[in-house]
C-alpha cells in the first residue's frame, strides 16, 4: 500500500467526475476561505460601517499592491523558490517611474510600460539568471539583490521623495469603472491571467514540475533554467506593477516603500496554501490569503479594535496553515479520520 493521498477516497473520486470542480475541492485554501467568509459576515453584522461599498472599495484598493506582488511571489514559490527582493524591486520601480516621468519627461503611458519591462528584466536576468542558469541558491541571490537594489534606490533618489503630478495617474488611482476602482480591475486581470497561465499552458505545468522535482523535470526535457528565469521575470514584473500602483496612489515616488512587503506577501502566499517546498498550491489561494489579510485589518479598524490584533491573528493563522499542511503531507489526517470514524470505542492499542 502506498501511503499517499489516494486514500482520501470515495468522496474525492466522486468529485473527480466534475473536473471543473476538482481544483476547488482539493484546494488547500478551503479552511482559510471559510474563516474569511465567517470573518466577513461577522464584521458585516457587528459594524454598520464595514459592509458599505465605499469601505469595501477602499479595502480592496488598499490591498491591491500586496495582491499583485503576492501573485508574483506565488510563481516564485510554486517553482520551489522565493523572491526576497520584491520590496526593493517595487521601490526601484517607483524611483525609476519618477525619474522617467519628471526628469526625462516621457509620457506616462510609456513610463508605465518601461517600468514594467525594467522590473521584469531585473527579476528575470538578475534573480532568474543567477538562480536558473548559474544554479545559485534562491535565498542568497534574492537576499543579495534585495539589499543591492535597496542601496541603488537610496543612492539614486538621494533618499528624497519626489512628487509626480499626473491627472492620468490620479484618475487611475481614484476613479472607478463600472463602480469598481481601477486598481481592483488590475487585480482581477492579473489574477485571471495568472490563473490561465498556470492552469492552462505548458509553461504553467513546467512551473509546478520544476517546483515539485527539478531533477525529474530536467530529465523529462523541460528547460528548467529558462522556466526559472521566466518565473522570476514574472515576479519582477508584478513587483514593478505594484510600484506603479504605489506611485499612482501616493502621487509621489518614495524610496521608503515596500520595506516590509516581503513578509506580508510571503504570509499571504502561505496562508493561501501554496507549499513552501514548491510544486503545490496556486494563485487562487493567494487571492484568498490577501483578502484574508485585507478584511481582517479593515474589519478591526472599522470596529475600533487596535489593528495590532491583525498581526496576532495573521501570525497565528499562518502558523496554523503550515501546521495543517504538515499534517496533510504526513497523512495523519486520514489515520485520525479513521480513528474518529470508528463507532465502537475499541482500544487503539491493547498496550495503552
Amino acid at each position: 500500500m502506498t501511503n499517499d493521498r489516494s486514500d482520501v477516497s470515495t468522496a474525492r473520486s466522486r468529485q473527480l467526475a466534475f473536473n471543473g470542480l476538482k481544483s476547488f475541492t482539493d484546494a488547500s485554501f478551503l479552511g482559510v476561505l471559510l474563516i474569511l467568509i465567517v470573518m466577513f459576515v461577522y464584521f458585516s453584522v457587528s459594524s454598520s460601517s464595514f459592509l458599505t461599498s465605499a469601505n469595501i472599495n477602499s479595502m480592496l484598493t488598499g490591498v491591491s499592491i500586496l495582491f499583485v506582488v503576492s501573485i508574483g511571489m506565488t510563481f516564485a514559490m510554486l517553482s520551489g523558490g522565493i523572491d526576497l527582493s520584491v520590496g526593493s524591486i517595487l521601490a526601484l520601480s517607483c524611483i525609476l517611474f519618477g525619474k522617467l516621468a519628471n526628469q526625462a519627461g516621457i509620457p506616462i503611458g510609456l513610463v508605465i510600460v518601461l517600468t514594467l519591462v525594467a522590473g521584469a528584466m531585473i527579476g528575470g536576468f538578475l534573480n532568474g539568471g543567477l538562480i536558473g542558469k548559474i544554479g545559485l541558491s534562491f535565498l542568497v541571490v534574492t537576499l543579495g539583490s534585495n539589499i543591492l537594489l535597496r542601496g541603488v534606490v537610496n543612492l539614486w533618489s538621494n533618499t528624497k521623495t519626489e512628487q509626480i503630478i499626473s491627472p492620468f495617474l490620479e484618475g487611475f488611482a481614484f476613479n472607478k469603472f463600472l463602480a469598481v476602482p481601477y486598481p481592483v480591475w488590475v487585480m482581477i486581470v492579473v489574477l485571471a491571467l495568472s490563473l490561465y497561465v498556470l492552469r492552462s499552458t505548458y509553461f504553467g505545468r513546467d512551473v509546478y514540475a520544476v517546483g515539485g522535482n527539478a531533477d525529474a523535470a530536467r530529465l523529462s526535457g523541460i528547460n528548467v533554467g529558462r522556466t526559472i528565469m521566466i518565473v522570476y521575470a514574472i515576479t519582477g514584473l508584478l513587483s514593478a506593477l505594484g510600484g506603479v500602483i504605489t506611485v499612482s496612489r501616493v502621487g509621489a515616488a518614495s524610496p521608503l516603500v515596500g520595506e516590509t512587503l516581503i513578509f506580508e506577501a510571503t504570509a499571504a502566499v502561505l496562508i493561501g496554501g501554496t507549499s513552501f517546498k514548491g510544486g503545490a498550491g496556486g494563485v487562487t489561494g493567494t487571492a484568498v490569503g490577501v483578502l484574508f489579510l485585507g478584511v481582517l485589518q479593515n474589519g478591526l479598524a472599522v470596529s475600533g479594535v487596535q489593528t495590532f490584533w491583525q498581526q496576532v491573528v495573521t501570525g497565528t493563522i499562518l502558523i496554523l496553515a503550515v501546521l495543517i499542511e504538515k499534517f496533510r503531507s504526513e497523512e495523519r489526517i486520514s489515520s485520525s479520520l479513521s480513528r474518529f470514524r470508528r463507532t465502537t470505542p475499541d482500544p487503539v492499542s491493547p498496550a495503552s
Partner: protein
Amino acid sequence: MNDQGGDQRVHAQIDGTATIESVPPLLAAENVFKHYGGVHALHDAALHVGVGEVHGLIGENGSGKSTFLKILSGQILPDQAEITLDGEPLPLGKPTLSLASGIATVTQETTLVPDLSVAENIVLGRRAVRRWWGLDRRASRKRAAEVLDRLDLHVDPRTIVNRLRPDEKQMVEIARAISMDAKVLILDEPTSSLTDEEVAALFGVVKSLKAHGVSTIFVSHRMKEVFEITDRVTVLRDGKLVAERDTAELDSAGLIELMVGNKLEEKTPPTLSTTSGEVKLKVDHLVVPGMVQDVSFEVGPGEIVGFAGLIGAGRSELLKAIFGLHPTAEGRVELDGAEVLSHNPRHAMRNGIALVPADRKEQGLILEMSIKENLVMAHTARSWRLGRPPRRREAKEVAQAVESFRVAGAKGRGGASIGSLSGGNQQKIVLAKWLATSPQAILLDEPTRGVDVGAKEEIYGLLDDLRSSGSAILVSSSETPELIRLCDRIFVMFRGRIVASMANENASESAIANYATGNN
C-alpha cells in the same frame, strides 16, 4: 540456515488460532487491521518472529508489507492490532516508543547525517558522554567502535559518512540500530541498491546478529536472498496472511505462487531478435572521465542489449552520457548514422533518445503531479510553452496507456496523484511516458527496481514488444536474471570498461558475476 529453534515456534494457522508449543515468540502481531478510506491495506494480518530468527516478510507491492512494517516501527497507527514484544504489549503509533521497546528499522533510504562521522552517527540521538569541557568525542568513538566490532565491520569510526559506499552506509545504520539494543531489526529492502558482494557482507552482519540473539525481519523482492538468509517466511497477499512457513519447506516456485496466487504462468523464455548485421545505435570510444573508459559497441534495430556490472562499474554513467547528462563525455554516438552525442538531455530527446532513469521517485516522476501530467510530460516538452494542453486528447492518451500497459488502479483516474499508484504501476507510467516520445534508442536503468514479481514480468513483456518498433534498447541492471531473461547480448562492465560480451545463449549468472567482479 539452522533450525534448532523450530520446535519452539508458534505455528499460526490462517484462521488465526495459534498453538504455542513452548515459549512464546519474541514478537507476535495478531489481528492487524489498517484501512485507508475504503481500501484495506491490512486485513487480519499476523506475524510471529522468534528469538534470533531471520524472518522474511514476503509479498507483492501493495500486499501490505510496508504498512505492516510501519505499524511495527510506530510510524502508522493501526485500526486494530494486538502486538507483543517479549510478552509485553508494544506501544503503537509512536516511533520513539517502538524504538525504545527494541524495534529498529533500516530502510532503503539512508537516515544518516552525511557530514558527520560514523561514530557521531552511531551515537546520534542519545546523550553523548560529557566532560567538563564538553562532549567527550573519544568516548563516543570507543562506543561506536565496540558496536562496529560486534558486527565485524572494519570501518574507521572517524570516517565521514558521505565517503562510505552504499552498503557501508547501510551497515552503519544497522550498527546504530544495534547500539540502541534493538531486539528486532527490520531490514526493508536493504539490498536493492547493493551489489552481490555488498549483499554478502550485509548477510554476514545479519548472521552475526543472529548469533547475538537479535531477530531480523527481512523484506526483499529477490527470491534468492530470501532463501539464502531467512529461517522462516510470512507471506502477505492483499493485506492478508497467506502462509507462515519454514523457509526450508519451500522452493522458489512455491513461494512465488503463495505471493501472487495463481496468476503467474510459466516463466517466459526470451524472444530474441532476428535481425542481423544492421546497426541502429553505434557507440564509439565513449569516455566519461573517471567513470566510463573508452567504451564501444553496436546495437541493431529491435535488439535488446544488457549491461551488467557492480554498482559503480559505469553502467548508469554510460547510459547517462548517451542521454547527454555528462558534460564531460567525449566520443561518438551514432543513431541511424547521425552523430547524436550531446551534453544536454533536451538535445538527446530531440535526437530520438529516451532514458528511463533508475530512481523512479527522484528522477522518473513528479510525485506531486497527476498521472496524466506525468505521462505526457516528456513528449510535450517541446511544445510551444504558452500553448494549451489538449485536455480531451490527453485524457484519451491516458486511457490508452492505462489499457495497453495494464496500469492497475489508474482507470478513469488520470487526474489523480501519481503517488496513489503502487510502485510497479508507477514504473509502468514512467515507461509509458518515455515510449510516448517515440524514441529510436531507449535506455533503461534498473527498469524493475523495487517492483514486484508480477509487474516485473509484465514490464519484460512490454520491452519484448518494443522490439517490433525497431528501436535500439539498452538495459542496465544489477539483477542478472533480469538481463538473461531480456537481452540478446549482455555486456559486462568493470571499472568503466566493457570486459566481456556474451550472447544470450552463452550467458549465465556465474559467468557474468565472474567478469563483473574482475576475475575474468
